[in-house]
């Protein structure tokens, strides 16, 4: 690494550390004000701040999962983890599979075990609920799922509605002005 590259690396490390200190509340008074002023014009500082936020949140999530046993029960329900979702989805899929097998072998099972009378409509409803549960979990994820999953998110759904509204309302309003411009827009 050249001396110039080393210097740049040191500068970036210093900036990243400053950003972390700012996010974690370590900077006080003049130091904090100076960093905030720097954010007005320094794109590197802004990106360092964004990275610091991402880093701290990711660390918090990891440490929370590692220490899950000390998380209050009320908060545990709100923790969403990929392994937990996989477990629930697998459970749902397994339940659906069991229902499907039972449904297909219903007559045989009925004949052998003579179960009490049941409502086939109830089974169909449970099957639909299972599919809906899987769909809800899939739709709540912000990122792409493997093709095998029932991912019904279209690319447009990853954009918030206000983006479309802001853009297309603007376009619709402008298109009403059906007359030539009388000024230079340069």
């Amino acid at each position, binding site marked *: 690494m050249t001396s110039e590259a080393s210097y740049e690396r040191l500068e970036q490390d210093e900036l*990243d*550390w400053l*950003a*972390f200190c700012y*996010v*974690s*509340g*370590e900077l*006080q008074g003049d130091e*904090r004000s100076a960093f*905030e002023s720097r*954010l*007005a014009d320094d*794109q590197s500082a*802004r*990106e360092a*701040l*964004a*990275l*610091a*936020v*991402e*880093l*701290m*949140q*990711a*660390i*918090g*999530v*990891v*440490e*929370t999962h590692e*220490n899950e046993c000390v*998380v209050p029960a009320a*908060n*545990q329900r*709100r*923790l*969403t983890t990929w392994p937990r979702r996989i477990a629930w989805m697998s459970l749902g899929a397994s339940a659906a599979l069991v229902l499907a097998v039972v449904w297909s072998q219903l007559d045989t099972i009925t004949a052998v075990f003579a179960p009490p009378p049941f409502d086939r409509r109830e089974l169909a409803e449970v099957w639909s609920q299972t599919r809906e549960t899987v769909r809800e979990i899939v739709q709540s994820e*912000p*990122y792409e799922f493997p093709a095998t999953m029932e991912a019904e998110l279209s690319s447009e759904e*990853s*954009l*918030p509605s*206000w*983006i*479309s509204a*802001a*853009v*297309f309302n*603007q*376009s619709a309003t*402008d*298109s009403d*002005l*059906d*007359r*030539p*411009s009388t000024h230079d*827009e340069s």
Partner: protein
Amino acid sequence: MSAADEGKLEPSIVAALYLDHGEELRRFLVGLVRDPALAADVLQTTFARLVERGHETRQETRKAWLFRVAYHEAMAIRRREAVGDKVVRQVAWQSNGDWSTIDDRLVRFETVEIIRDELASLRPEERQVVRMRIYEDKTFAVIAKELQIPLGTALGRMRTALMKLRERLKRRDDESK
């Protein structure tokens, strides 16, 4: 296209800019205003400005333009909402040590997995300081006292750990380009 539309950014460009920079902008704003809901409001305002004035920007500087507008909007809101004092405290999700209120849009699953792997590869003493500072929300002075190490050593371990974690995230960003 009417004369009024001429020069306006194409909707597809606005959408692409949101997809490319929206998440990073949101994180930047959270770092400034310390409130995910407020950050979302400012993000929306920023992109509204882009729709209004984006045609005056150059493509190569649009990202910096977005961040600059977001910065000024955020500072204006902080003044209006008297958020200044809150900024001195840590980011909203840390105020109660309640990590369950994390906004999923701020951190992706794959980022968490990357960080999980890197944390596991840190030296134990570095990992310990990271956990105590971020998860347990202890000051460096308290950490140094509990671990019976100099304050500079505690800071150094944290800084080294952060450097390794940041490098890993930056490699992820470079690989995704």
